[in-house]
């Protein structure tokens, strides 16, 4: 009833063209060869389809913090991109109840030549935060990211970790009801991860829903009560975080996972 996310039979297949540079040529060739191929062989060329997401279904109640685990290329990021409405699914559907904020990458739209301050306003506009809200919260962003007087320096003088701090500080100003995060804290130091965990715990307490993809099991165990485990585009396990993390580690030691849904 009070659910934030409902995903039903969601699948995503990327068009498998022979590289974008050849796209027009391929289209022209196909058009030119069409009459020929029709005469010689009735077989259409078999396209290799790669299902980045394969028939995914799950529901997440409001206020839950859910981990997405799985190896690189398992489909975690694709799922987050679909839910963030950056890409569309090939079939299936998903319902999102409430405002959505996504952190799919470190500082999307950050420009290295602009100063920290200029980037705050550019990034804010990209994420859809009103300018007057940004002006009001500018000091809060500077404090939270711990950047302080670096704000007038160009972004390229910032370390990667500092850029993540700034990006995270801006993104949390959105105060979304559903927060989607993809592996963005990987380069942050322990101190800042601690700050983020506190912030995300506050978010949870406020009834916000969080979907967090990461390989950092310690972080996930701290924040999440439930985990979704993806392999090769399929949701193979959906269960309590503690159980999945044990099995995920066991899997690394060579024990194959079994399908279970609790």
């Amino acid at each position, binding site marked *: 009833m*009070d659910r934030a996310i409902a995903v039903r039979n969601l699948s995503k297949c*990327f*068009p498998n*063209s022979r590289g*974008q*540079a050849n*796209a*027009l040529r391929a*289209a022209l060739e196909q058009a030119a060869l069409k009459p020929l191929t029709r005469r010689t062989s009735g077989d259409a060329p078999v396209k290799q389809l790669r299902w980045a997401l394969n028939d995914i279904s799950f529901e997440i109640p*409001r206020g839950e913090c859910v981990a997405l685990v799985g190896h690189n290329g398992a489909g975690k990021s694709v799922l987050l*991109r*679909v*839910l*963030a*409405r*950056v*890409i*569309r*699914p*090939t*079939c*299936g*559907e*998903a*319902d*999102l*109840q*409430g*405002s*959505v904020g*996504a952190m*799919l*990458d470190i500082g*999307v*739209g950050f*420009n290295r*030549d*602009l100063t920290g301050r*200029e980037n705050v*306003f*550019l990034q*804010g*506009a*990209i*994420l*859809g935060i*009103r*300018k007057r809200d940004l002006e009001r919260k500018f000091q809060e962003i500077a404090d939270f990211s711990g950047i302080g007087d670096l704000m007038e320096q160009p972004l390229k003088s910032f370390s990667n970790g500092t850029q993540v701090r700034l990006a995270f500080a801006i993104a949390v100003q959105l105060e979304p*009801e559903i927060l989607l995060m993809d592996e963005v804290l990987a380069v942050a130091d322990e101190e800042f991860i601690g700050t983020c965990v506190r912030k995300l715990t506050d978010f949870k307490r406020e009834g916000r829903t969080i979907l967090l993809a990461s390989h950092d099991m310690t972080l996930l165990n701290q924040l999440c009560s439930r985990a979704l485990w993806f392999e090769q585009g399929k949701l193979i396990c959906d269960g309590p975080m503690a159980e999945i993390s044990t099995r995920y580690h066991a899997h690394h030691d060579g024990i194959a996972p079994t399908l279970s849904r609790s």
Partner: protein
Amino acid sequence: MNDTAMVRIRPPRRWNGFDWREMWDRRELVAAVVRHEIQMRYRQTVLGVVWVIGQPLVTTLILSILLTRLTGKSHEGIPYPLFVYVAMTSWAYISHGLTKSAGCFVSYAGLVNRVYLPRLLVPLSVILAALVDFAVALLLLPVVMAYYGVTPSLTILALPLVIALMILTVFGMGIWLAVLNAKFRDIAYALPFLLQLGLFSSPMFYGSDIIPLPWRWLYALNPVVGIVEGMRWSLLNGQPAPTALMLISTGAALVILSGGLYLYQRREPTLADVI
């Protein structure tokens, strides 16, 4: 429980429509991208803002000097350099705007790939940012006109209409180029050549009156014709109003824009798949 509306994510359909309200809500994004485009023009340059003013200024000087030396004749009482200069200001905007919009989804790939936003605002922002050069060239125009002793008449009040047609044209064509270039990067390579063809098939160095009257309506299907003739009529004294040409060009621009918007709503859902 929540007062926010539910969002349903679905596979793309044939008609995906437009969320005009959402675009209006996100208008601050346009302002931010325009500011960013202009900032990046002179960031990390020694001369800074001089580049923004300098380029149109030098172009004007060269055009005026060269054209006077080469021809020295006048066109229907208007000094030939002025006749060409007025046309060139709008052409400079059209070619710059089209080049920027063709590459906009690719150069803002980070945005298209990682954030949800009304993506139509991206080409809109870059063509608005390109107006800066046009504005500078327009501000220099009184100087050039004074030099040739030409005073504007009341027709100058129609200038905003002509500029509106110009922006409409660039936006319409720009959507086509931006969407097609996202999938077929060949567009960006073909564009300089297409622009060269456009330059010579538009009345830059000659007046539309060299086209035989029965064919002139066909010629005006190129919206640049209506824009250039409109600019000349509104800025330079004593030209007959090119009403028919401008109406035909406006119609053509609207058809191009509608086609572009249709293509956009069809392709927008898969933009992040191909960029």
